[in-house]
């Protein structure tokens, strides 16, 4: 039971984290009535996961060999793109909302970006979704025995715990100031996206589309990325116990490029789209 609990908690953690942030974000910018974008994105993610789970079970041959890999890569890189885009945008607005009064972002301006929120929710759920569906499915077929039932229950509780974590993030997010939330989540999403980018590049390397590089370091004896703490760090900031040089390079390169893209804004002049055309103070 404990084993399956950890698996689903781990698979659900990233989705819960992203959904928690996304809902808090909507609430923070005063777009609480647009939760639907996040909900629809998440629901579509679940739907797509179930569909992919069904399709994978029905597939065979080359489609089964390469289809899931291609989709996984597509989702990873799509997630990296939308997270980067959103992080950049959020950083721009962290400057606009800095001040004594927590000014709500001009809603019209926020609204035309809401589909990005939906897309983030979608990729967040879909990324590990199909895997989780197949895992749960397998457990349910064996839930008739006592041990099988305990395993299925453990898996279910793992998902509940992940959801609770997401909820806790949402609740906790209410109590921190807007610009701190923006700064915190910009940084967090940046690390999250860096981890994803590195994972995607690692997959390409494993598939032979990138030259093979050797292992950069091995810290599995200190913190294995299979363990509880290690796998959370893996989901959160892309921690790897045995990354390849290419994966490390991808991580660092992403951080450098996306980081400078996001935080460079702090010293440049404000964008003309800043509400009311006021020169906003700098955020960190």
């Amino acid at each position, binding site marked *: 039971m404990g*084993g399956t609990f950890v*698996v689903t908690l781990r698979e659900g953690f990233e989705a819960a984290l992203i959904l928690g942030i996304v809902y808090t974000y909507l609430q923070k910018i005063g777009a609480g009535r647009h939760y639907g974008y996040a909900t629809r994105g998440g629901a579509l993610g679940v739907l797509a996961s179930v569909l992919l789970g069904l399709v*994978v*079970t029905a597939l*065979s041959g*080359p489609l*089964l*060999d*390469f289809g*899931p*890999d*291609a989709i*996984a*890569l*597509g989702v990873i*890189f*799509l997630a990296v*793109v939308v997270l980067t*885009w959103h992080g*950049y945008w959020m950083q721009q607005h962290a400057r606009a909302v800095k001040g004594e009064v927590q000014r709500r972002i001009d809603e019209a301006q926020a609204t035309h970006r809401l589909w990005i929120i939906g897309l983030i929710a979608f990729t967040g759920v879909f990324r590990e979704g*199909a*895997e989780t569906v*197949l*895992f749960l*499915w*397998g*457990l349910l*077929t*064996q839930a008739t025995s006592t041990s099988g039932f305990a395993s299925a229950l453990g898996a279910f509780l793992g998902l509940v715990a992940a959801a609770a974590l997401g909820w806790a993030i949402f609740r906790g997010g209410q109590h921190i100031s807007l610009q701190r939330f923006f700064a915190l989540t910009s940084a967090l999403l940046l690390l999250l996206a860096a981890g994803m980018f590195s994972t995607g590049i*690692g*997959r*390409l*390397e*494993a*598939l*032979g*589309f990138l030259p*093979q590089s*050797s*292992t950069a370091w091995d810290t*599995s004896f200190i913190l294995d*990325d*299979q363990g509880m703490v290690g796998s959370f760090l893996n989901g959160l900031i892309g921690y*790897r*116990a*045995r990354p*390849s040089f290419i*994966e490390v390079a991808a991580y660092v390169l992403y951080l450098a490029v996306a980081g400078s893209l996001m935080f460079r804004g702090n010293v440049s002049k404000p964008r003309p789209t800043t509400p009311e055309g006021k020169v906003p103070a700098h955020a960190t």
Partner: protein
Amino acid sequence: MRRAFTITIVGLVAGLVAVAGRASAADPRPEIALTIDKDQFQPAEVKVKANTPFTLVVTNKNAKAAEFESKDLRVEKVVPAGKTVNVLIRALKPGTYAFFDDFNKAATGKIVAE
């Protein structure tokens, strides 16, 4: 900004198409059978020639899905119940590479390249 992202996305799509193209045009390479049965991989130790790419033909005999995973090889591949999946493995330097079933940690094994 917008243009940069468009370029990025176009680049990624092109990359994926290239990936699919190359994958389907893969050269014939040695195939090595690996079976997941109950809580075990058979064989639990796979011997391969170093520096030669090969294909692991993984068959899942269980009634539930498995996920062939290896941190050392950076491979993660779902194998649905009763299915067979080809896992392309790059040329390996001599050494030992551990793998396991991510859905059932009791099942582990290793590849020994020499």
